[in-house]
């Protein structure tokens, strides 16, 4: 007999992707901290490096070293062991991450057998595209291509792998639908990206520690910069959302003559956070779930189109390397769904860093991840804000438009809609900041040996795990994106509302507001400290 218990504040802690993103990422983060006590249990996390078929004499790029365990470079206590792993780190990562994700899948009552099968295929396809994308012809820049014996390279950095993963995923999702449906149990871009975003919290907290090793001043600058992004992102998103939503609502109602509820759900879906907002708003206005589902299907497809267009546009047309954080913040406000946005931010990060390096002939290098962080920061704020906005809409709908006798809106709705992975993101970030400012003595030289142990743990998580989960996101985003959905007749009107609102209203406003709050922010130059 089924039980119908009250929904408590902790309901869903073991049965939702949101919470499982937190458990998995924070779990590995804590395990990584054991490095402080000399126990390195995360050095096996795999990472690719650029390769060529025939490396030049004395040059780089042997295929045998194309994947390595990050502990080889960063471990303090087990460097030798992790050095020996080489390509085996791919298998170690498969088994350990696969096991962690399967525990999550089982707790969420997914079909475990199907999940393991799907994940195995997705994982190894991801590794294959990661490997191919790191061929020096694709990933090298004109600054470092000579090390691999090349006279020409595509200058894509790590972005090439992401694009490749997305393309492979899209081919499967659009041309091999039976296969895509088999993989669907494990093609969960949103779960992977939420996990990756929590590890991005590790990255943000680790950034000052990393730069301290170069100079204490740079470390402090990095801590200040991330905090600035936090504040500017909050202000920008609140302003943007309060302009986006009514704008799209009016366009839907007045120009496209849609009913109130549909317009409200579209308003949220197109405005910023896509599917989660469409579901939240659909619930808030008591729409039939089909409204949210239709809007969601559109959101997912349009988000991928944005992901393909915007990073290149921002890098090569405007604002280019002059205002990388305006581009990042605008991306966060313009690209729907956490997965597509974080992915677009990561792509932008790769493109921008590669571009500045090429433009200045290696004289300027930016630390990786800050531009991604700027794109995710605005998104994280909006994910939180939607819960409050949905509550406001629920009050208006329940008490104004559709007054029903005795109906109340429980305030607990705000918490139930709160994106829980955000807690993990902030937790990891602030935990590492506390280590940096506390025992790390703000990067003072005498604290360096201690900070090095923190680094040994943090790097595999913020670099290896994060990038792998980004790759999984790109691949599975492609797999679940079926462009045919846009052609279905019943979506006709909504497809046009979406197109008009997105390109005529949302993206320009996002860029303007991103500019107002982030113009002139600069990234630290680390060229003199890195090879």
């Amino acid at each position: 007999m089924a039980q119908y218990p009250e929904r408590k504040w902790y309901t869903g802690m073991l049965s939702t992707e949101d919470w499982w993103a937190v458990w998995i990422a924070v779990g590995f983060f804590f395990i990584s901290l054991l490095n402080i006590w000399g126990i390195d249990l995360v050095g096996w996390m795999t990472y690719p490096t650029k390769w060529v078929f025939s490396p030049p004499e004395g040059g780089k790029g042997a295929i045998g070293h194309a994947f390595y365990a990050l502990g080889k470079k960063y471990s303090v206590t087990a460097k030798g062991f992790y050095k020996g792993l080489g390509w085996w780190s791919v298998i170690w990562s498969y088994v350990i991450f696969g096991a962690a994700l399967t525990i999550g899948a089982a707790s969420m009552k997914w079909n475990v057998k199907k999940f393991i099968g799907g994940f195995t295929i997705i994982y190894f396809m991801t590794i294959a595209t990661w490997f191919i994308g790191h061929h020096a012809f694709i990933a090298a820049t004109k600054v470092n291509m000579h090390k691999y014996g090349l006279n020409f390279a595509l200058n894509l950095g790590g972005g090439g792998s992401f694009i490749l993963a997305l393309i492979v995923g899209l081919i499967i999702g659009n041309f091999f639908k039976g296969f895509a449906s088999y993989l669907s149990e494990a093609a969960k871009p949103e779960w992977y990206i939420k996990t990756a975003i929590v590890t991005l919290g590790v990255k943000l907290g680790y950034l000052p520690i990393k730069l301290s090793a170069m100079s204490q001043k740079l470390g402090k600058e990095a801590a200040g910069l991330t905090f600035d992004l936090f504040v500017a992102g909050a202000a920008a998103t609140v302003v943007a959302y309060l302009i986006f939503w009514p704008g799209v609502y009016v366009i839907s109602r007045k120009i496209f003559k849609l009913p109130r509820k549909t317009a409200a759900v579209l308003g949220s879906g197109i405005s910023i956070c896509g599917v989660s907002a469409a579901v939240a708003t659909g619930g808030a206005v008591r729409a039939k779930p089909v409204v949210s589902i239709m809007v969601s299907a559109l959101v997912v497809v349009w988000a991928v189109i944005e992901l393909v267009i915007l990073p290149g546009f921002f890098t090569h047309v405007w604002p280019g390397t002059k205002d990388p954080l305006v581009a990042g913040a605008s991306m966060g406000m313009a690209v729907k769904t956490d997965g597509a946005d974080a992915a677009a931010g990561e792509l932008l990060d790769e493109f921008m860093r590669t571009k500045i390096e090429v433009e200045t002939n290696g004289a300027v290098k930016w630390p990786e991840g800050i531009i991604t962080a700027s794109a995710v920061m605005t998104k994280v704020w909006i994910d939180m804000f939607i819960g409050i906005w949905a509550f406001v809409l629920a009050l208006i709908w329940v008490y104004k438009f559709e007054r029903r006798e005795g109906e109340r809106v429980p305030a607990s709705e705000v918490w139930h809609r709160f994106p829980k992975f955000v807690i993990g993101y902030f937790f990891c970030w602030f935990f590492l900041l506390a280590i940096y400012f506390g025992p790390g003595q703000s990067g003072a030289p005498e604290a360096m040996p201690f900070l090095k142990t923190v680094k040994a743990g943090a790097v595999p998580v913020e670099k290896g795990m994060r990038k792998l989960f980004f790759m999984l996101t790109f691949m599975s985003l492609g797999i679940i994106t079926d462009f045919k959905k846009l052609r279905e007749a019943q979506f006709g009107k909504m497809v046009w509302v979406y197109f008009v609102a997105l390109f005529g209203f949302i993206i320009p406003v996002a860029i303007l507001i991103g500019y107002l709050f982030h113009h002139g922010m600069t990234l630290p130059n680390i060229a003199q400290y890195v090879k």
Partner: protein
Amino acid sequence: MAEEKKEISGTGSLTGEALEAEDVLAGAEEWSSTETWLVVGSFIAAIIALVIGMILVPTSILH
């Protein structure tokens, strides 16, 4: 009961294709004053947030 729910969870019982969407797209209500209030209120809140934000946020173009 639990079994039945599990089945639903596997595929998702609702898809856009399976449902007639007519009533979702048609039958727009008259524009009401509450909507004006909601839209205008939201824009006004945006302007207030923009002004306060520009003053308080150290990286805004006012600084």
